[in-house]
């Protein structure tokens, strides 16, 4: 599924960035790479931007950018 489809509080494991060029490269540079785990912290109402926690830091992105990240929803214990 796509990062943009996750609800606040959901944990995920990145499966890959589906687009290349500027936006995709930027997301990959910021740490969205295979196997990286993260968590959706919150989303603004009316499909506003979302806050995501990966690699120990927080990132803000719009729904349209989050739709470029393929993820697998994780359940269970938050990993360290």
């Amino acid at each position: 599924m796509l990062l943009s489809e996750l609800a606040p509080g959901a944990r995920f494991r990145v499966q890959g960035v589906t687009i290349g060029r500027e936006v995709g490269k930027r997301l990959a540079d910021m740490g969205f790479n295979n196997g990286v785990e993260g968590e959706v912290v919150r989303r603004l109402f009316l499909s506003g931007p979302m806050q995501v926690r990966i690699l120990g830091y927080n990132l803000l992105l719009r729904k349209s950018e989050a739709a470029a990240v393929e993820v697998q929803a994780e359940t269970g214990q938050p990993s360290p």
Partner: protein
Amino acid sequence: MSGGTRQGRLRIALAGNPNAGKTSLFNALTGARHKVGNYPGVTVEKREGSRIREGREYRFIDLPGIYSLTAYSIDEVVTRDCLLDERPDLIIDVLDSTNLERHLYLCLQFQELGIPVVGALNMSDEAKAQGISIDSYELGKILGIPMTATVARTGEGIEELLDLADRAAAGGSDDLHRISYGPEIEPRLAALELAIAADPDFARRFPARWLAVKLLEKDGDALERLGSHRDAAAIAALARESAAWIGTHFGKDAEIVISGQRYGYIHGATRETLRLPGRRAASLTDAIDAVVMHPFLALPIFALTLWGVFSLTFALGAYPTAWLDAFFRWLAASLGPVLPGGALRSHVVDGVIAGVGGVLSFVPLIVLLFFLISVLEDTGYMSRAAFATDRALHAFGLHGQSVFPMMLGFGCSVPAIMAARTLKSPRDRILTIMIIPFMSCGAKLPVHVLLAAAFFPRHAAAAVMAIYAVGVALALGSAWVLRRTALRGEPTPFVMELPPWRRPTLRGLLWHVWENTAMYARKAGTVILAASILVWAVTSYPRHEVAPGEREAMAAAWSQAHPAAGSDDLEAGLSRELAERSMTYSFAGRFGKAIEPLVAPLGFDWRIGVATVTGFAAKEVVVSTLGILYGVGAGKSEGAGLRSELAADPAWTPLVAFCLMLFILLIPPCFAALATMKTELGWSWLGFALAFQLSLGWLVAFAVFSIGTMIGIAA
């Protein structure tokens, strides 16, 4: 490579991600010895400074904060050009220890440039507090990048950092250590490197390894640089083919694969050297963000914050403003008797002192506003504001990050226009700069206050507020229109780091306030003084000589028109009429009459026309011009006098006053702002902005005046 000797000068580039503490480290390294300029050809700030230590000179260049060495943003291109073309002896990379993996990502790209790199593991105090421990020696050994812990805020660790710099510069670049991209990619990189190195002239200028990697990442700028290689076409073809192979082999674009490999390498290097706490403790930042970034409350909180900033500014600013006002009143009163009498005295006292004083009394307000905005910026609220407003701003074609320059615009357009540099896409930058003047600046405030007090005495505050609201609404509306016409294009991505909340330092705050205010105060002292004198001159010259006998004729005519008037009234009426004549006879009068047809449809007479034109020097000059134009007959133009003078004048109605407020709000702010716009955007965009703002201002004032007159508000 120069300067590698013990005593030679070291040229050091300071680089790193935004928010790593680079500015703080630069200040700690250079003290007050630095100068600020621009990188050639682009509007990215360039700061240089130096430090002498044990007889050795260290020269520092501060590079813009970036996340990666791609060539997608101006900042990245500037960094790349500086490193490739100026070839510093050493790069000090500033890393945030609390967020090590992502910060190492950029660090390793610097290493690929073949320039020695030293890492400053900054924010080590915060890392310790969070229970993060880093084995800096071991990490440095694995990566081939010497590292040491620093706290840029206090200057801790700087000596060790410079020791490492000395040693690294003496040792030259380290070719043994470098990132490995794995068994599939390395052979392809090797082939590219070999082909690039085949042209020795070329290879001297560009590091082969770095260029090979960038070519696989399909980097447009790297491809352009390759153009000067003798086998450029063949290498480009080889790179294309390799990238395509990687694409199919890994099932995703080569540039994404390479990012992944870098992070994989970093993960390997930090596995043994970085210890994170078992569980991340809920931090204060999380608690504050739960409220400030609440899905529903974020936007109302932003509105409340904005309102709070304004209320506080006006509440606190009222005191110093009153003191300054009293001071200038006292100055005018005590200078009056000292100066020789006549026209000169009245104009020095009423025109110049009242004009400059009127402006300077508003400086405390501007300083306070900038101070509060700096607090918001330095604590980290501005990223939250971008989060809160992006959805709404995006609907109008703006970007969440436009919110900061727009807020500064309420203070002064000049720093606001410069702050638009933080927007990475040129289109967003142009758009934001285009609408900043509609955020009613501090210089327009005296005009609004004067007119509102004169014509809406019972609703003055509401009238001023309405003008601000109209400004914001028209800013958003214009953005919407421009985004669909002159500035069409793909929306820029919103991918932004959210830094933790931080306690601002007094030094940082004062620096920001100083930077923003200096421009405004300097303008008040020079431009407005000069403008006041100029306005006085053009309204007084050429002198109108009264022909012999003319005065008697006028007196007779006046007495006939006012049969019941006494001799005092006659004197006052005569001098008013004479002043009126000499005004009409002066340059300003002739000019005003000439442009009257242009402003008459807005309900303005020629005097108001003159005031709007002199307002280009600075908007506060509108007030002093009106003071001179209306104060002449009465002999007084300070605050209350001018107010009643205007209110009593038949040319003015509340509708005219409101239209003037609208017109002043929308037309370009002042020469200083126009000059800034020119440096930021160039002549053609300046011309466009000028035309756009002037026509919008005229049309809005015209529409309001016509409709108002039609439904009979004018009466």
